[in-house]
C-alpha cells in the first residue's frame, strides 16, 4: 500500500509540510516495500487557483491509498473523498515520524475539510 505525505523536502527526515495544496513536495511511501519517491509540487506553487485540487489529483493519480498532511481545504477534500482516499492529520514532526504514527494508528482521519477554502 502506498501513502502520500506532504513534505518540506525530499527525504524522510524532512519536516512534514502542514499545507497540502501548496506543499513543497510529496513523499510517496510504499509500506510494503519500504521504499519511497519524492515528487516536486513546484507546478502547484505556480497555479493561480485550485492548487489543492491539482494536488489532490496528483495524489489520486499516484495510486496512493491514504494522505497525511496538516490541513486540507474543502475542494481538495471533496476530490480525495470522491476517490475514497482518507486524509490523516499530523501536527508536525518529520515524515518518518508521521509514517510511524500512521502505522501504529495514532493519526486521526478527518471526515470533512478542516480549513476554509482560499480561492487561490
Amino acid at each position: 500500500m502506498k501513502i502520500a505525505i506532504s513534505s518540506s523536502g525530499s527525504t524522510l527526515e524532512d519536516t512534514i509540510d502542514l499545507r497540502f495544496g501548496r506543499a513543497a513536495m510529496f513523499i510517496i511511501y510504499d509500506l510494503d516495500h519500504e521504499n519511497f519517491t519524492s515528487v516536486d509540487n513546484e507546478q502547484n506553487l505556480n497555479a493561480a487557483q485550485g492548487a489543492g485540487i491539482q494536488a489532490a489529483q496528483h495524489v489520486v493519480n499516484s495510486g496512493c491509498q491514504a494522505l497525511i498532511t496538516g490541513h486540507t481545504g474543502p475542494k481538495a477534500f471533496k476530490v480525495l473523498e470522491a476517490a475514497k482516499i482518507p486524509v490523516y492529520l499530523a501536527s508536525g514532526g518529520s515524515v518518518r515520524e508521521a509514517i510511524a504514527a500512521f502505522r501504529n494508528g495514532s493519526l486521526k482521519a478527518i471526515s470533512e475539510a478542516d480549513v476554509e477554502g482560499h480561492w487561490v
Partner: protein
Amino acid sequence: MKEIVIISGKGGTGKTSLTAAFATLAAKRGKAVFADCDVDAADLHLVFAPEIRERHEFISGHVARVDPKKCLSSGEDGSCSKCIELCRFGAIKHSYKTGCEVDEGSCEGCGVCVKFCPTSGIDFIDRRCGEWYVSDTRFGTLVHAALDTRAENSGKLVTTVRKEAKRVAEGQGADLIIVDGSPGTGCPVIASITGADAVVIVTEPTMSGQHDLERVASLARHFAIPFSVIVNKADINQTMADATESWCARNGVPFLGMIPYDRAVTKAQIEGKSVIEHQIKCGVDKTGNRDVSQLIAKAWDLLC
C-alpha cells in the same frame, strides 16, 4: 505570531493611512513585519520609503501569442478565423496585413485558441503579471508588490506577498504581521483575509461606506474570520457614524472608535510620514489638535 489585516470594502476610507499609523505604533512596541496586499495600485510604500533588498518577477498563468508566420489569415488569401470564433473573451483581432493578433490585456489564458489553431500557430507562454519585493523600512521589513496594468488579479500575488511576510516574520522572530489589504469583495480581498487572526474594516460615515461595510463584513463572516470596525472621517456626518456604531453593537462586532476628518492626515502623507509621526513632529501643532493620533492609538490598544 498574530496577523492583522486591514480592509475597507469602499476605497478611499483611509485604510492605507491607518495601516501606516498602526505600523508606527507597532514598531514602537516590538518587532513587526508589514505586507502591502493592495497590489492593484499599491500606496503603502509611499509612506514606508522602502529600500528594496529583493526583487522577484511574478508569473501567473499563460497568455496566447500568434506566430504571424504560421497564421493562415494574413494576406489577401487569408480566410481562417478559427481562433476568433472560439475566443469567448473577444481577445483576438484580425487584420489582413498581419493576420490574427491577441490583445494580451484581454486574453484570459484559457488555451482554447492554442489547442484548436489548425497550424498550431499560437504559442502559450508564461504570463508575467508583476513584481514583488522584500524591503527594509524604518518600521521593519515590508513585503510589497506591483501588479502590471490590466494584469489578472486572482489573489495569487496577494497570497505570495502574505506567504513571504510570514516567512520573514518567522525568520526574524517577529510576533506581529500587519497587512494593508485590498478594497472590494473579490479574489484579492478574499486572498488577503483567509487565515488571518483579525481583520479591521475601515469605513466612513456615508451611505456608500455603510453599504460597502455590510458587504465586506458578510464576506468576512462567510470565511469565518473575526473582524472589528473603525469609522474614519467620522465628523463628516456624526449621525451616520453613530449609526455605524449601533450597527456594530447590534451585530456583535467590536467597535474600535471614531477618527475625525483631519487635514493632518493629508499633510502627513505629503511629507511621506504616517499621521502619528507627523503629529509628534508638530508637537502641539497649529490647529492645537492631536486628537487623531490619540484616537488611533486607542483603537490600536483595543485591537491588540
